[in-house]
């Protein structure tokens, strides 16, 4: 991101097991895309589960803070942000870009993207196809929202009973949406509601969330990038503040080189 908050480059990659090596690859790719060298970057903030595994970052900031900031940029009137990722789901109460309260669930796969991955896998479908397929449903079935393993068994039973695939998928999307809706209840749902994370790419879950929350649900152009965009915005603010106060930019010693487990 440049000083005018224009996004110059963005990279999205599957994380895999080796965070440290991956962080470098992502950085190099983004630099290549933007046509910049690493020394031209004023500030680097790492966020997310693997944020401590980014050896070249100047600072680590939690994904909650970064998310709130990133969502606020695309939707200044946001009051509730719902982020559903691969292994957790979060609800963020936001006002004027400030994080007021949050709730999260990371102890159970039901209500996370993992739930959808497992169902897609057992139906031999691509994750990207679930959403559009489910929209054809005319009679969604009821699927357990409390346990992924049992939901998978229910799906197999429904298939063997000849229930149309789209009705099963609609049931799956309703299961995850109703669970997340229950989770965010405490935060008091009010518009605007913004939905981010990988699962926000699934139109079936977006519709099911709207039904369960009883209000419109907005999805940013690239729902996977909200946290990274927020991190870049926070980095810009830290840099500009230091310059305005005539202080040096509070940088860490950076190492843009591959770090291995055996160093």
């Amino acid at each position, binding site marked *: 991101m440049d000083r005018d908050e224009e996004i110059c480059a963005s990279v999205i990659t599957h994380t895999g097991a080796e965070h440290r090596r991956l962080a470098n690859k992502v950085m190099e790719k983004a630099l290549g895309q933007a046509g910049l060298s690493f020394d031209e970057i004023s500030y680097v903030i790492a966020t997310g589960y693997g944020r401590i595994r980014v050896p070249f970052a100047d600072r680590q900031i939690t994904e909650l803070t970064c998310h709130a900031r990133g969502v606020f940029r695309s939707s200044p009137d946001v009051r509730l942000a719902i982020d559903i990722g691969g292994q957790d789901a979060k609800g963020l109460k936001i006002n004027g870009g400030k994080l007021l309260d949050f709730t999260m669930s990371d102890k*159970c796969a039901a209500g996370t993207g993992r*739930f959808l991955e*497992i169902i897609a896998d057992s139906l031999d479908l691509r994750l990207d196809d679930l959403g559009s397929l489910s929209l054809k449903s005319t009679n969604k079935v009821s699927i357990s929202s*409390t*346990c*992924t*393993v*049992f939901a998978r*068994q229910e799906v197999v039973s429904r298939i063997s009973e000849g229930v149309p695939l789209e009705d099963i998928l609609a049931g799956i999307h309703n299961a995850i949406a109703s669970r997340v809706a229950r989770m965010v209840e405490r935060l008091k749902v009010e518009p605007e509601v913004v939905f981010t994370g990988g699962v926000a790419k699934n139109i079936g879950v977006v519709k099911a969330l709207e039904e369960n929350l009883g209000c419109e649900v907005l999805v940013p152009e690239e729902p996977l990038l909200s946290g990274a965009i927020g991190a870049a915005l926070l980095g810009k603010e830290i840099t500009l503040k230091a310059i305005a106060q005539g202080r040096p930019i509070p940088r860490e010693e950076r190492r843009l080189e591959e770090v291995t487990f055996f160093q």
Partner: protein
Amino acid sequence: MAWFTGIDIGSGTSKGVITKDGKLEVYHMLASGVNYRMVSQKLREELLAKAGLCAEDIARTVTTGHGAGIIPFGNQHVADIQCCAKGINCIFPSVRMVIDVQGQSSQVIQVDKNGQVTNFAVSEACASGSGCFIEVIANVLQLELKDIGPLSLNAKNPVTFTTGCAVFGESEAISRVSEGIPKEDILAGVHKALAGKISTLIDRVGLKEPCAISGGGGLNVGLIKRVEELGIQLLVPPQPQIVNALGAAIMAEEQVT
């Protein structure tokens, strides 16, 4: 001469028994698969054939278990908790508590001297509270279900599963394997996790002794060891999986006489 049948369609295994004069005559088991209706009929046919009987010889049939609702025969459907209490009372009349570890849930049941339920607790609709958790981990380690109990006994440092979710547990198991942790330590960890869930169920109703284990979990020496480590001695029936079907048949008999 009257024979009675108990049919228990579990989420994983279907069990049938024939009793006479309150005693077990014959039992039979099949994998449940996805078509409970079909498996229940096949189970009945094979059970009768094993006993050398025909359908008319059976005075009464009681059905139970996860898939009992859609069995196309049987005189009555009875909840698995009642059948379990009755069944364990037939095998071990002195037992006052039974832990039934099934494929989709675990239950802890207090039993009186007549085989009546006096109190019980059932796990939530969550795979990590049932035998399913162990199956999921056995699967990811590419081990046969029957081998994991004995293997887990060799563990030196049981791993700790952090989330209490079978799906996340699966990922944790994969991570531990890639870190070079021995399989037996992972298996001991999952048995410990399930034993912990069972222990919270016991706390809810209060421990009564003597205590027995039934269901598929009763076949697993690894699980039994981890429950016993919590200070609970367990009696194990010779065929722990057929306890509920046996109880169903005894109930059928009691309803007539």
